[in-house]
């Protein structure tokens, strides 16, 4: 084989190497997304309908408010905004807890950094079902916190089944996903930059605000997406820690799936996906950064 022939064969082989993945990606990544839209806009006999989409926006149910009055609410809109609210609160708490921590780790010695990062990854590698369940046993009315309170002759607190419990679960499950990307950006930051800022007259707070914060922004953005997306779409945490009282968008999809209402499940998933895509496009506009998220 001549040199040119070899190059040609190599190029042909490289093109061929991409073929199986291309087919796979089209069949198992792209086409399934169209199936969500297809199911969302069809009825049980696969005839076109907007019934399921309309149901998402118009379905109502009655809730009893704290004052005892009965109020009619838009069921699924309420669920969506509740998911958004709890996920945003959890993300903010994760950021407030995780950012200083990532900074502290990045300033530690090489060895300490490595050990601490390994330790943060340990709970991450445990299945989130187990982690969430552990919190359920702690927060229960007869759980550890209340037996501790009882031993100290304090009144028992009712935590499980509140929105607070769901937030605790989300923060616990996803905190490492906030710490790690912020840390990895901070660890790569040149120490000389910080020293230079200080030499040029910056106070410690000034260094933090003017140098560390802007440089760590990419880590913050990816941390936010890595916490926000799984917490907004979770369904196990709310079932276990919210006692099933606080349906989230994930619960809505899951319960429709479990009840075999595949078309309505698809409709909720479709609307959810559209909102997420719009949100991500907006974020990309605002930050000029590509979003890599997921769990």
């Amino acid at each position: 084989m001549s040199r040119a022939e070899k190059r040609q064969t190599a190029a042909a082989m490289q093109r061929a190497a991409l073929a199986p993945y291309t087919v796979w990606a089209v069949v198992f990544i792209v086409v399934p997304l169209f199936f969500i839209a297809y199911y969302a806009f069809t009825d049980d006999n696969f005839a076109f309908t907007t019934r399921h989409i309309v149901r998402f926006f118009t379905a109502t149910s009655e809730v009893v408010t704290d004052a005892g009055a009965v109020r009619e609410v838009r069921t699924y809109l309420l669920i969506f905004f509740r998911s958004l609210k709890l996920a945003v609160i959890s993300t903010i708490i994760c950021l407030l807890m995780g950012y200083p921590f990532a900074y502290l780790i990045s300033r530690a010695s090489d060895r300490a950094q490595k050990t601490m990062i390994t330790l943060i990854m340990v709970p991450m590698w445990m299945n989130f079902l187990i982690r969430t369940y552990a919190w359920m046993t702690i927060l229960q009315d007869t759980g550890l916190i209340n037996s501790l309170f009882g031993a100290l002759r304090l009144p028992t607190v009712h935590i499980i089944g509140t929105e607070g419990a769901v937030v605790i679960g989300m923060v616990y499950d996803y905190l490492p996903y906030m710490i790690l990307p912020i840390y990895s950006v901070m660890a790569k930051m040149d120490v000389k930059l910080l020293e230079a800022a200080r030499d040029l007259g910056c106070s410690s707070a000034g260094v933090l605000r003017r140098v560390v914060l802007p440089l760590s922004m990419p880590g913050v953005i990816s941390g936010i997406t890595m916490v926000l997306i799984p917490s907004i779409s979770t369904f196990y945490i709310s079932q276990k820690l919210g006692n099933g009282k606080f349906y989230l968008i994930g619960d809505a999809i899951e319960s429709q799936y479990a009840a075999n209402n595949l078309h309505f499940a698809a409709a909720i998933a479709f609307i959810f996906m559209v909102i997420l895509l719009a949100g991500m496009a907006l974020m990309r506009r605002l930050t000029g950064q590509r979003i890599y998220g997921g769990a």
Partner: protein
Amino acid sequence: MKKTNRFSHLYTALIFAFLFAPIAILVVFSFNEAKSLSVFSRASVKWYRELFRDSVTLASLKNTLILAVAASLISTVMGTAAAVGINKLRRKWLSAAMDTVTNIPMVNPDIITGISLMLMFVFVGRFFGLATSLSFWTMLIAHITFCLPYVILQVLPKLRQMDPSLPEAAMDLGCTPMRAFFKAELPEIMPGVITGLIMAFTLSLDDFVISYFTQGNGFQTLPIRIYNMTKKTVTPKMYALATIIFFVILTLLLVTNLIGDEDAAPKKRKTRR
């Protein structure tokens, strides 16, 4: 200065306490004779004995391992080949399109990925008149699908770092293109391939949401088994299981950390100075 130091130690301790307290409780109460999770009666390994007698859980562990091995191997081979191809794409729009599609499973919430695959499997199953189309195979397809992007993302940077003249030199020195890839190119990108394989393996082991939607025909993985166990009141058997998982993970991570320490430390110091 000392004050901030003390504060940072306290803060670190608090975060780690938060991260490990729930796990510590599971570990302690897995050795509890009684079923209670708040009162420790007497130390015993009763629940461990019961766990090892639970054939359903053991079978699901076996299923999880079979699935993770198959999914990680297939996605590593396919993903590595794909990365080689993507790296050579010259048309901008083609590589941008590839990039976008590859990102979809990573950006999408797991529940969307799971639902979308399930709907397609159900539809295709109905088309062929099957009662249920969900089985081990649909789960395997789903796992390969969500593992692939992570493999590609690990291998692609290694290919871009590699000197492109390396395989060319191998060919000039008499290698066939195939041999040049396996002898010159593959060893160069091996670290990325291995990391991709490990990531795919652990992602597959740990996945619950996507497996939940694509499961069928009684094929149960360990996370699904745990889900089914926590649906009813849980026996401390599950804490015994969690404890074993915790120590396996801890050992694995510490061992890889120590091994990584030995060959990474001198290199790191060099780049620092």
